[in-house]
């Protein structure tokens, strides 16, 4: 559950970073830093989650099932989705760590897989655990889902509001011109009043 919340935060911050957004009291680079550090923390949690599930004696899950989908006899489909989410996440993390050596296109293409990984991880956690399907944990799982959906909608809406590059300068020129014209009027009126 901690992991789901953590991954949700990583997703939301990632969405914010794509729009060069800011958090109150934080400079832009800190938002990027937070996104990066939380995702690395999430990787640690994912590894703990995988290893404890495999080595816990409660049910037998082979280590290979953590990376190869549909190989576990226990909760075959839902654990398989977990493996898919895990693999995608590894790809995203690996390309980000090697980003200096990759073209922006390649890195971005792989990074977009995060939008696949997160929903798959959500489905995996929701259906392979009976605990998440009711009570306070259910509310939390639903809240995570709603938060990411809302984040994606915000991301798309904000991109749609973008001013095309070629029109930006004209818009800004009009804005400063308007302001200085207003300033002019103000000073003329002040002079007239004197």
């Amino acid at each position, binding site marked *: 559950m901690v992991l789901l919340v953590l991954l949700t935060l990583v997703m939301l911050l990632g969405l914010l970073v794509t729009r060069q957004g800011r958090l109150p009291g934080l400079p832009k680079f800190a938002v990027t830093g937070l996104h990066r550090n939380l995702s690395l923390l999430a990787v640690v949690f994912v590894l703990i989650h995988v290893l404890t599930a495999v080595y816990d004696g409660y049910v037998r899950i082979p280590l290979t099932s953590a990376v190869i989908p549909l190989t576990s006899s226990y909760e075959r489909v839902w654990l398989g989705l977990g493996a898919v989410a895990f693999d995608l996440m590894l790809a995203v993390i690996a390309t980000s760590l090697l980003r200096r050596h990759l073209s922006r296109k390649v890195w971005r293409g792989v990074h977009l897989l995060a939008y696949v990984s997160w929903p798959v991880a959500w489905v995996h956690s929701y259906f392979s655990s009976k605990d998440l399907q009711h009570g306070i944990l259910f509310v939390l799982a639903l809240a995570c889902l709603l938060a990411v959906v809302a984040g994606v909608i915000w991301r798309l809406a904000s991109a749609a509001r973008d001013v*095309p*590059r*070629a*029109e*930006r*300068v*004209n818009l*800004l*020129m009009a*804005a*400063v*011109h308007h*302001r*200085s014209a207003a*300033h*002019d009027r103000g*000073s003329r009126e002040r002079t007239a009043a004197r």
Partner: protein
Amino acid sequence: MTTVTEPTMTELPRLLPAAQDGNQVQDLRAHLARYGRLPYRDRMGTLIHDIEAAGLTGRGGAAFPVHRKLAAVYEASDRRRRPPVVIANGAESEPASDKDATLLWLAPHLVLDGLQLVAEAVGADTAILYSHADRSNDVGRRLRNAVAEREAATLDRVPVQLAEAPPRFLAGQETALINHLSGRPSVPRFVPPRVTERGYNGAPTLVQNVETLAHLALIARRGPRWFRAVGTRDEPGSMLATIRRAEGQPRITEVPLGMPLKELTGDVRPDQAVLLGGYHGTWISGQQAATLTLDNATLGSAGARVGAGIVITLPADRCGLVETANAVRYLALESAGQCGPCLNGLPRIAAAFAELARGRAGPQTREDLERWCGLVAGRGACHHPDGTANLVRSALITFAAEADRHARGRCSATNTGANPGASSTPFLPIPRTTARTEDDWT
């Protein structure tokens, strides 16, 4: 068989038709009669040593040593086993300049010779001439005719493609040019990779100003010693200059580097102003202009550069603040709108400068302008914010007394005292077209 008249070592003009020929366009026959055959070397690379010995630098404004670019492209093409591309850059987008358009109109074959020679020197398989088509004359038609003449005479070893630049200030910027030729909007991109490494279609690309190529074509014929017979030791050769002193058409002239500036500005009062290098250039006072020479070594002491050879003397009845305000507004509108400091900073600087010109500036305006110039300079993918900041800063210094006068509601240019800066048409030429949509950049 035509006989080539041997010019004396220091005879000018070298590139443009001689004065006694008037402004006669040099067609292929006239061109070959004057300069002789195109001296192909039949070996890659050998021209590079001659260019190094001549000390030829880029005439587009940056004065970068030509042999170093040639060597960089040659080396990159060798290392990557990829034939390079050579591009003649005639996209002279500086509104105050007209020397490249004039050169292409009067002596296109010299430029095309230079393009062939650099293509041979670096082993290029593609040659492009990039220019505006109709800034003053119908340069586009002139170039099409010239290329056809050469095809008929089977002169060119690498076929030349002609490409037209959009009417944007940044069109001639090296990476913007590559973007445009690749079918993208003509906006600069971040370097690295340098275009000498990855330019047109990802190939190592040589981009040289058209005047540079014309000089190169003559160095190939007459040798480095001939080239160095004029100019200074460190900045040899001659250059085309655009001279503006009064309203109307500018005068294009070829001058040796190191020439006293006052020969170009004419008689200038100490309190008059001279603009060197165009709208990314530097205002200096008439007093400074009287002692400086046209070379980077001395102009550097006044914070100015030779640039692309634009020398503008501001007439006494014109206001430097108003003229600068017009230019800065134009520059702000020509921002590609990609980099934050340029996109946000230039409109604000333009608005504040306009207030200064109209005599409506607050007590803080000049300080604000200084501060904003510091904030935008050096923070773009290209030098557009730097050049604009340079113009504004030099204007604040050169027109400091004028700004004081405007603050008191006076102007030395109009002498009306009532409405400073309410002037007629601008003296500095400002293109009327501004970009509104992406189409205006392609």
